[in-house]
């Protein structure tokens, strides 16, 4: 048994699967992280990912090209972000309830739109998804090459997003304003920067990331749109943000750890054969997510103004 696991851990296939699984999680987790660093919990993530999965796929199915589909999904995601922000940022309504409402609305709307455009589809129709692109040279490195450098372009985009988001948050004036909006919005407002605009922008960008994460699933991991295919990935991303203590680098690590265990679970399932029911393997990601939140709960230093709406003229 131990030998089998070692073999799995050393196989390029396992690592390639890990990287595949991690890509949508990276997008979703970064998206949630951006929203929360600006002080807004976005529980619309599950619905926005569903929307992105449907929108991007539908764009391609209707004849658009793949990158156009990604841009379209991001645009739709940003629209839902604007929707979320008008409620939570401008009207200061409950972020919990708004997020759940957005999720219910966006998921059902995705299904409605899908049914409207494809009323008679019994078996889900397929598109030609993103193909793996082997980076010349790098992909020839044993194990790592196959795992890391023979992925689809969307995976490379996910991996590059991590340093990009880190850079913007830590090294640019805009990123400082976003972080400050999540820590002390009054400080932002007193410097003549529009807190509401900063938060809205962050929620829109974050939601666009989430939608791309959804689109990855229908346009890179699979080639079709199924009902319920996001299957809690959004909620897992919310847990991962907590696990990562709101830091992009740690988010990547957490997502990798998580995806690795998930990939391991799939292979273990094959090893275990019929001895352990498959449902228990499928449970692993959800149980892990809860465990991750518990582990980090004591150490987490969350953005101080998370969940706190800002109203102009407050305490100034």
């Amino acid at each position, binding site marked *: 048994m131990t030998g089998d696991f070692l073999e799995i851990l050393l196989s390029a296939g396992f690592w390639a699967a890990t990287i595949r699984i991690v890509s949508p999680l990276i997008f979703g987790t970064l998206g949630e992280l951006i929203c929360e660093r600006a002080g807004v919990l976005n529980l619309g993530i599950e619905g926005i990912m569903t929307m992105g999965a449907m929108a991007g796929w539908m764009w391609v199915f209707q004849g658009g090209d793949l990158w156009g589909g990604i841009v379209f999904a991001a645009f739709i995601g940003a629209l839902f972000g604007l929707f979320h922000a008008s409620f939570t940022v401008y009207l200061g309504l409950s972020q919990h309830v708004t997020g759940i409402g957005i999720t219910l609305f966006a998921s059902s709307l995705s299904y409605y739109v899908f049914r409207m455009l494809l009323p008679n589809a019994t078996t889900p129709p397929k598109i030609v998804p993103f193909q793996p692109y082997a980076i010349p040279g790098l992909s020839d490195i044993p194990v790592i090459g196959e795992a890391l450098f023979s992925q689809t372009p969307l995976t490379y985009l996910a991996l590059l997003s991590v340093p990009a988001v880190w850079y913007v948050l830590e090294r640019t*004036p*805009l990123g400082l304003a976003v*972080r400050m909006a999540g*820590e002390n919005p009054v400080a932002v407002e007193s410097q*003549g920067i529009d807190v509401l605009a900063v938060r809205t922008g962050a929620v829109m960008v974050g939601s666009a990331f989430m939608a791309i994460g959804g689109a990855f699933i229908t346009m890179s991991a699979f080639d079709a749109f199924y009902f319920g295919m996001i299957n809690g990935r959004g909620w897992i991303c919310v847990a991962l943000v907590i696990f990562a203590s709101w830091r992009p680098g740690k988010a990547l690590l957490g997502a990798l750890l998580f995806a690795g265990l998930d990939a391991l679970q799939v292979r273990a399932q094959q090893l275990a054969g019929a001895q352990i029911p498959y449902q228990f393997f499928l449970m692993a990601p959800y149980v892990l997510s809860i465990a991750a939140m518990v582990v980090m709960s004591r150490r987490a230093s969350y953005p101080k103004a998370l969940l706190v709406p800002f109203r102009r003229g407050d305490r*100034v």
Partner: protein
Amino acid sequence: MTEKSVSVMPLLSFRGITKRFGPLVANDAISLDLNQGEVLALLGENGAGKTTLMNILFGHYMAEEGEILVDGAPLPPGSTDAAIQAGIGMVHQHFTLAENLTVLENITLGTEPLFAWRRDIGAARAKIARMADEYGLHADPDKPVGALSVGERQRVEILKALYRDARILILDEPTAVLTPQESDSLFETLRKLTSKGLAVIFISHKLNEILSHTDRVVVLRRGAVAGTVTTSDADRASLAHMMVGAEVNRPKATAMTPGDTVLRLTHVACRSDSEAQSLKDVSLEIRAHEIIGLAGVAGNGQRTLANLLSGLIAVDGGTVEILGATGVADPTELVRRGVGRIPEDRHATGVVGEMPLWENLISEDRRGAEIARGGFIIDKGRAVERTKRLIEEFDIRCEGPEAETRLLSGGNMQKLILARVLSRGPRFILANQPVRGLDEGAIAYVQNRLLQARTAGAGILLISEDLDELFALSDRIAVMYHGRLTPPQNTADLSVGDVGLLMSGQEPEAAHAH
């Protein structure tokens, strides 16, 4: 003191500013000038219109009438940015700093174009170092603000304004959180700034500070300018009279013979789970008919002590004996024993704003025999009856027992809490900042009620940041510093300066010896 040039034109002037909120006139045709190189005090009670005026200056509110001129040029209304561009900087009473971010990040926010590709951290570091040398304002740029003391944070706030080349600095109640000695060093800094040509508006209601550290005083009363005087021509009485519009008659305690012990703390240690200061080896005895004043700069353990005596947290060492029984960690039991608790923040912990008055009046004895029928059903009839009686007795201005509590004014909300506490005839009262943020009328009412309770036999622990209040009401005063408590001394034997030294952790005798 402006050796360089005496400009004829005021640096900043308000011309006939009027702002209304519904029927309330918050600012009534306010005009005032600020000259280069001066420290101008803006004096007024809570609700006199100081905050509204500053909000208009910074564009948070729009005035209905009037205009603001900087260097003779009108300031565009409704724009924070315009105010900052015009060289106006504000240090708020509640600091606008992010604790998780560094000093440098807090200072540089908003000083660069938002959509630049990178923050110029090197240049910022150099400029902060330069300012530190020039004004004597030192702060480690890479430390998170959360790791700084209150005084250091205030320094960061001032640096923040100076970093934007502010020529006008506005400080809103800046000494409320400082020891008298820290305040002195702040005034030194302000002198340094004005000597370099800056002008300062100093918002306060502490007459002593204003008299000794400002050049001119503008007094606001009920939204209008009640008078403008040169500080050297003013005295306490005249300023107080201008501020309140009548003789100020705050109550004063008269001597009484102490009775039995109501509270005894013996070597109490108490760790605090939050950011509040822990208690170390605190001993204290309070007897009936006695008010012990507790002085100290905010954050030195007063809150932990208050939480302990309110029954919210447990002791880690030593013993707490209240009204003859030991052990404290249960508010309901404490109230039943005869403890009255007036919390520090009436909005946040005193009342549930969205509940009606009658529900807030039963919150502490809701499971008691009078209110809980069969231990489970609330007897609303009795609760409303009680509320009607207390509204009458404590002169609470409201629409009735069913009115939402959040709609009460600060003074009436405090009266509601007093009604809840005092109607039970408590024998030990914890009064934590009982008059904070109230107007003179309400202050006198609350203090008189506390003195009546003392006469009736209660022992009172009065926690306050207002030394005047402590000296007027306390039989003895103790000082809290870094979680330790000095032995209480008779108020008559103490001076404000002595208490100030104790508040900064020094022994008065030792200080005198040097």
